[in-house]
């Protein structure tokens, strides 16, 4: 079986890799590129732990082939902080204790960032619907939503 050569931009850096045709983007990120922030929760698009953006669009990286990413721009949780400086969402997740085991957290942060880029002033209901595809079995979601709403407010003030 011949491997497929893919050229992408990941978190701003041009990245090339070889992958098997049936390999998911999630497997490529984790196993070939060492970007282990995206998690495999279910592998079937139900839990959102593998969320990344592809050409600005929020997707489950487990529901996409690595080969499909040729020519596209991907952002992952690894691209969220600027060096040591946390993104406001990351900071607010810490302040609100919006995580316990942490498996869902990278996906929720990526999804929440995508929400705030599209809608800087979401209502709580809009935030809950947007994040409905990100499952968390620890927090009961309230702290996550509080952190997202607080970060949104801070980001609005800063802009």
């Amino acid at each position, binding site marked *: 079986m011949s491997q497929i050569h893919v050229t992408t931009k990941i978190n701003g850096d041009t990245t090339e890799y070889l992958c098997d045709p049936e390999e998911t983007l999630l497997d490529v990120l984790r196993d070939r590129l060492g970007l282990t922030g995206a998690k495999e929760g279910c592998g079937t698009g139900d839990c959102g732990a593998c969320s990344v953006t592809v050409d600005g669009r929020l997707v489950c990286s487990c*529901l996409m082939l690595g080969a499909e990413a040729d020519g596209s721009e991907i952002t992952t949780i690894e691209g969220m902080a600027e060096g040591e400086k946390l993104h406001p969402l990351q900071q607010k997740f810490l302040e609100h204790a919006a995580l316990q085991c942490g498996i869902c957290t990278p996906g929720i942060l990526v999804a929440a960032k995508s929400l705030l880029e599209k809608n800087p002033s979401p209502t709580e209901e809009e935030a809950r*619907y947007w994040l409905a595809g990100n499952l968390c079995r620890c927090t009961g979601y309230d702290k996550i939503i509080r952190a997202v709403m607080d970060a949104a407010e801070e980001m609005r003030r800063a802009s």
Partner: protein
Amino acid sequence: MIYEVPETVDSAVALLSGATGSARILAGGTDLLVQMKSGVVEPDLVVDIKRIDGMKSITQEDGGWRIGAAVSGAEMGEHEALCGAWPGVVEAMELIGSTQVQGRATLAGNLCNASPAADSVPAMVAAGALVRVAGPDGVRDIPAEDIPVSPGKTSLAKGEFVTSVFLPARPAKSGDAYLRFIPRTEMDIAVVGVGVSLTLDEAGTCTAARVGLGAVAATVLLVEDAAAALIGTKVDDAALDKLAAAASAACKPIDDKRGTIAFRTHVAGVLAKRAAKIALTRAQS
């Protein structure tokens, strides 16, 4: 498995026609990758159609709208003119899955996955959607309701694939709507789904209607008796009662963990009424 990315419809058809083993189309992949992961399908060939011209575009044509086979639900929801023209089809598509799934899932894929509970399909059937199919013998346009033939099976022959879905032009004073029942508010599979599209004349009398029912039979149902209950009326309470009775009468559901036969049959009537009222309001505005 071989992964191919053709750039023309003809080369995609040639790849699919020449496949010796099982072949699958990849657009959004939100069904295909789940099936591959679970081992339900192990394709020898996957043909990614996203680089073919027109697959990612929404274009106006003869007063209607042509939606490429790889257009995502999110792209449909962001298209203001399409949302204005066919709000029921767009709202049905947007009910499918999460934000992440919306980023990839497609109207054509929802149809070709041939699930009896597919949300967008009753809305497409109500809209009178025509599906463009390319194959070894050229291109043909067929009604959406003729694509699924049984759960998981379509009428497409070897070498054929859907290139776009066309929502035809309709007169002013038309409206459509889709409603489904699920036991929670989001991220679930329809227990019953109903799409209604109708047109009024200047006096407010219904001159045309189509009703599609999902999740109450092995395939989507186009219910002509339900449409007939509306045509010629002002869509008043008496007409809505007849519509509900006709929708319930058409149901041939199964009992399963998501709903009983009696429940699905009753709810089909209730939702048909409610969807018709929304379609009516949209037609009047």
